[in-house]
């Protein structure tokens, strides 16, 4: 990571308020290409709001988020891929169709614009690309199955594959493994770590699992409220209280201990 590069994401004095209720305040951060940011924090301290701001489904009250030095689109777009905890894949399409959809939305032909479908040669190309990505996430055997026929882990693999076909500038993961069994979660950690390194992805991952954050991230953000007003808890918002660089791939036991020593309230 060379600091002379331009940051891919610049967050400048970001505030988010709903009326009098301040959710996020005073966030100033730069993120560089290839970083893997794990985001942790107690429930209700603005992690999801932050993700929505990154996605474009909500707009900052003050300040701005720049992607490649330009303000973010005010609605979701192809630069930002997303994997939610659930409902990320389309139940009415097979795994292959789910992954092809990104290319079929490309608007490069009349059939794409009018029907959201590709035909002929373009369709074959999209199918090949999609199969290649399914191969990478280990789903090539399940290409013609519907999501309801897939296990929870396989559905999340599919959601990742689906997001990757658009080659997003940043990949947002919203507690992507929260609903999975521990064994499957371990496989998924391996997969996402591998994809991150191979494809030089820039990833933001919200997680409830601190050790998962340490394991996968190259950087860990902790969201918390530092100012408290017991009479009017809504008056102050959360901001990023810790921004810890991590050596990736280690379980981060010592960092975890150190963090716990600071009596951090992590749910």
């Amino acid at each position, binding site marked *: 990571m060379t600091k002379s590069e331009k940051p891919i994401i610049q967050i400048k004095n970001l505030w988010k308020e709903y009326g009098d209720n301040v959710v996020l305040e005073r966030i100033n951060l730069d993120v560089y290409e290839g970083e893997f940011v794990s985001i942790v924090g107690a429930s209700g301290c603005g992690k999801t709001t932050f993700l929505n701001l990154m*996605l474009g*489904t909500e707009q900052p009250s003050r300040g701005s988020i720049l992607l490649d030095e330009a303000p973010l689109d005010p*609605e*979701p*777009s*192809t630069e*930002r*891929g*997303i994997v*939610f905890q*659930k*409902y*990320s*894949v*389309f*139940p*009415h*399409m097979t795994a292959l169709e789910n992954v092809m*959809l*990104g290319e*079929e*939305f*490309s*608007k490069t032909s009349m059939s*794409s*614009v*009018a*029907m*959201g*479908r590709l035909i002929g040669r373009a369709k074959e190309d999209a199918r090949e690309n999609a199969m290649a990505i399914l191969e990478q996430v280990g789903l090539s055997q399940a290409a013609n199955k*519907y*999501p*309801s*026929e897939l296990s929870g882990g396989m559905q999340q693999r599919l*959601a990742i594959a*689906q*997001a990757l*076909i*658009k080659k*997003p500038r940043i990949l947002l993961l919203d507690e992507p493994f929260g609903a999975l069994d521990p064994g499957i979660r371990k496989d998924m950690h391996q997969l996402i770590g591998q994809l991150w390194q191979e494809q030089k992805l820039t990833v933001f991952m919200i997680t409830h699992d601190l050790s998962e954050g340490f394991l996968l991230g190259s950087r860990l953000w902790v969201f918390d409220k530092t100012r408290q007003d017991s009479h009017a808890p809504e008056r102050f918002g959360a901001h990023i209280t810790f921004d810890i660089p991590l050596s990736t791939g280690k379980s981060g036991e010592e960092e975890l201990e150190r963090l716990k020593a600071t009596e951090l309230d992590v749910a």
Partner: protein
Amino acid sequence: MTRIINRQPSRYGRLALGFLPFVILLLVYIVASDARLAENSADKLLPSFQSFADAVVRMGFEPSKRTGEYLLLNDTLSSLQRLMMGVGLSAFIGLVIGVGNGMVPYMRSPLSPLVTAISLIPPMAILPILFIIFGLGELSKVVLIVIGICPIIIRDIQLRTDDLPPEQLIKAQTLGGSSWQIIVRVVLPQIMPRLIEAVRLTLGSAWLFLIAAEAIAATDGLGYRIFLVRRYMAMDVILPYVLWITTLAFAMDWSLKRVSILLFPWYHGTQGGGHD
């Protein structure tokens, strides 16, 4: 003694219990009919099964003396044509407006209150207005069905569209879909099986409105025949017609379910193996 809520009939017991109410109804009918016929052999209120058979042969398998047509066939075709047109039109309008209202806030704001208001009008109450606007022909019968069931379908489809997880729509946007592409590829295909469900649920009302429309002004149709022969209390014709309508309605419901399972296996997969 286990609690009654924990006692399950055996497989055959369940089957027997399922048939039991029908057998009882049949028995009640036979006993009552025999008693009335013993008193007055020309009684028309509860005719014998022989009269039913005669009526079915007469209406279904012999050309009418007056017109040379097969009445049951003619009536069925006319009624089905009206029903299909009414239901088909309602489903189409319901899909377009329901999905539009669910997806496009600028469409929903003006249309949603209107649809709610229309759905609260009892269609039978505005019949005279329908006659003046649409005449007394086929059109007004189809329109009555549409006015009767379309608002229900629209509201159902709108709710079903709202129920689609927002995550899916966000995901589709991050894949580069335009509003139209998302509606065509993500929303419509998921709404189609729900539309079939909505149609199945409103079929009963559709029949009701069809028969009401045919009772008011018609020259043929199942409802027309029932209300015509009601004038001289020909229960031997009315009861087989009622059974026939029930059979048709059941067959339509069943085929819609099969079509849905065939075309949208993913939907019935998530619904727990295609049980109703």
